[in-house]
């Protein structure tokens, strides 16, 4: 195992110093055998942790695999990603989550932590074997039917209660299904003009309001996926003020893009929950700074070309996120490195109970980190992405920041801006 000496790097924006990585940890002094990495002008962050990734394997390997998604993650500065359960077959058994976990370890680019389905087949009828997934090799702690809402209040209550036995957490895709039948985009002026069926903000807010009350009632933890509206922020703010154990995530695209983009009818901008208004974007940004929203999670959702090059109504919702997330957050928050480390590394690792990630780069810490060149600018070209899919909404956009290197347990997964394998 080679050691690395990163010279003159700024840890979280502090004055330049040297970082030494050996045997998977940050150590105090070099021994002269290390490979040297020039860290001048670079900022070191603890390796990013994504609580919400779709890797598509098993089932849609034409859109993404654990390996290609892992490479995209490493290039985005991530050292751990949580893989959503809506694969085919669904990750609702110990067998499937162990398969995904094993594929992740084999790829060896990021720690792939499977999320288990809450209900069998994501059908919302009956609890999946949550305990079996928790005690499997994958050690599942987060459970989600993402893509679907656990809409049945009684089932949601049971799920919240049941996972307490193994310190699990339910991550809810908040979408009241009866209010969003046939929905294509945010319900508002733009949907009215475009003649696309609306996805009203209240469909998200009503479920979050219900779920924070349920979590409070049974004393459980709740995590809310991809919060997208100003109203949801207010519900969360009040719940947190009351002491409800709720955490929430926002996606990079909901921090930047608005529903006006649907006017092109280009489904690359179709996503669930949908892009909202500029007022929602402003509220989400403020909530992320305030901590009402705890983390940024990508909801990286690769889709094959034929699922996007079609009529808006027939396209699948979702957009790529892993390789652009940090740049988007940089453009939204500016170079507030401690805040970025908090929202993209420390807090997601803490919510997930993931040891070895999200720890600051002190001597003795696990050497999971990423090096960012904040002065670099790049124009997003879908052809250059490591993801197997091309559905980025940022094509042609100039974004700040570039990931120069990423280390997983002291081993480089990215060097000179390129994946090592």
């Amino acid at each position, binding site marked *: 195992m080679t050691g690395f000496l990163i010279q003159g790097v700024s840890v979280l924006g502090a004055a330049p110093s040297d970082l030494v990585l050996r045997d998977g940890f940050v150590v105090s002094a070099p021994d002269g055998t290390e490979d040297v990495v020039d860290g001048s002008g670079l900022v070191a962050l603890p390796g990013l942790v994504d609580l919400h990734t779709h890797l598509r394997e098993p089932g849609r390997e034409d859109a993404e695999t654990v390996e290609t998604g892992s490479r995209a993650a490493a290039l985005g500065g991530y050292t751990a990603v949580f893989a959503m359960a809506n694969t085919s077959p669904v990750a609702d058994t110990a067998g499937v989550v162990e398969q995904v976990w094993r594929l992740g370890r084999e790829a060896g680019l990021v720690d792939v932590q499977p999320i288990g389905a809450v209900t069998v087949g994501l059908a919302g009828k009956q609890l999946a074997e949550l305990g079996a997934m928790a005690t499997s090799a994958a050690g599942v702690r987060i459970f989600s039917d993402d893509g679907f809402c656990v809409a049945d209040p009684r089932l949601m209550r049971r799920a919240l209660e049941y996972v307490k036995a193994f310190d699990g957490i339910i991550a809810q895709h908040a979408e009241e299904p009866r209010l969003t039948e046939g929905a*294509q985009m945010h319900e*508002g*002026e*733009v949907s*009215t*003009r*475009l*003649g*696309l*069926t609306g996805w009203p903000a209240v469909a998200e807010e009503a479920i979050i309001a219900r779920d924070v009350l349920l979590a409070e009632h049974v004393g459980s933890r709740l995590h809310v996926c991809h919060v997208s509206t100003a109203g949801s922020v207010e519900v969360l703010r009040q719940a947190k003020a009351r002491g409800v154990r709720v955490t929430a995530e926002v996606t990079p695209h909901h921090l930047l893009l608005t529903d006006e983009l649907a006017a*092109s*009818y*280009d489904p690359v901008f179709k996503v669930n929950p949908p892009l909202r208004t500029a007022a929602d974007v402003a509220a989400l940004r403020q909530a992320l700074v305030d901590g009402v929203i705890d983390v940024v999670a990508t909801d990286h959702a690769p889709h094959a070309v*034929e699922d996007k*090059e*079609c*009529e*808006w*109504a*027939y396209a699948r919702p979702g957009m790529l996120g892993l390789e652009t997330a940090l740049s988007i957050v940089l453009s939204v928050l500016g170079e507030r490195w401690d805040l970025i480390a908090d929202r993209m590394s420390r807090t997601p690792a803490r919510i997930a109970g993931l040891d070895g990630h999200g720890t600051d780069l002190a001597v003795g810490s696990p050497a999971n980190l990423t090096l960012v060149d904040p002065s670099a600018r790049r124009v997003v070209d879908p052809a250059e992405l490591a993801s197997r899919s091309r559905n980025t909404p940022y094509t042609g956009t100039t974004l700040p920041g570039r990931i120069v290197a990423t280390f997983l347990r002291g081993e480089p997964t990215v060097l000179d801006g390129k994946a090592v394998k």
Partner: protein
Amino acid sequence: MIKHLRSAADLDLATATLILDTAGEMAALAGREVKKLPTLRGRTVVNLFYEDSTRTRISFEAAAKRLSADVINFSAKGSSVSKGESLKDTALTLQAMGADAVVIRHSASGAPHRLASWVDGSVINAGDGTHEHPTQALLDAYTMRSRLGRLAGLRVAIVGDVLHSRVARSNVLLLTTLGAHVTLVGPPTLVPRDIAAALSPATKVSYDLDSVLPDMDVVMMLRVQTERMQDSYFPSAREYSRRYGLDLARMRKLPEHAIVMHPGPMNRGMEIAPEVADSSRSTIVEQVANGVSARMAVLYLLLGGKA
């Protein structure tokens, strides 16, 4: 001249007026023994219809043929990507065949916008989902101008299922451009509350048809699908008809000169009473005839004809 007609918003006042004036010249042709112009000889117009619509397809077909274009009818039933060829592959096929214009009717809003990004020819929206139907708005405006002599300052009520109506959207946009004043009328479940902000800030909204009628020059009744009842947009066809249907008693509330329009096909007895549909105020049959003239004008101008 614009290249595509995807939305009534593609038309500014000058362009819209030019199309209406040209439609007038085309209408004069209909009175002649030989109803044909050589203008589009050698040009190919494809009617790409993903939804059944005999009247609109025939109208476009007649319009293209009267201009001597070669017409290809491409009817693609079962429009989802899961069934058969994708819209993009179809577009590439039409492109390879050298279509000069593609007239598209599709159940998905925005399909003409997607198509226009894949073909070199002109794309004409013949109705897309619940979005727009701009040639219907043109023939409606033409009909109003023929009957009432002007468009600027006209007061027009559009009544019914505005939420799902592509006819309503295109009419609001075009009539506003042409200087008319539009009031949308229907139950609150079927008139989006942000419709004025979405389309044109001057648009008025009312939930009370009786109070609106005495001030109108034109009342346009929209088709209301009885399926909407199953989805609780209104309680029953009977109640809808009582509150928003145009019967003889309501028609008498209109000023003497006012006209009654309907894009068809009508639900007689639902949104419009048979005696109203067949009255002298009704322009429903004229609208069909004017449809051919308006579509001739659109094809003629978009394909490079000189007015």
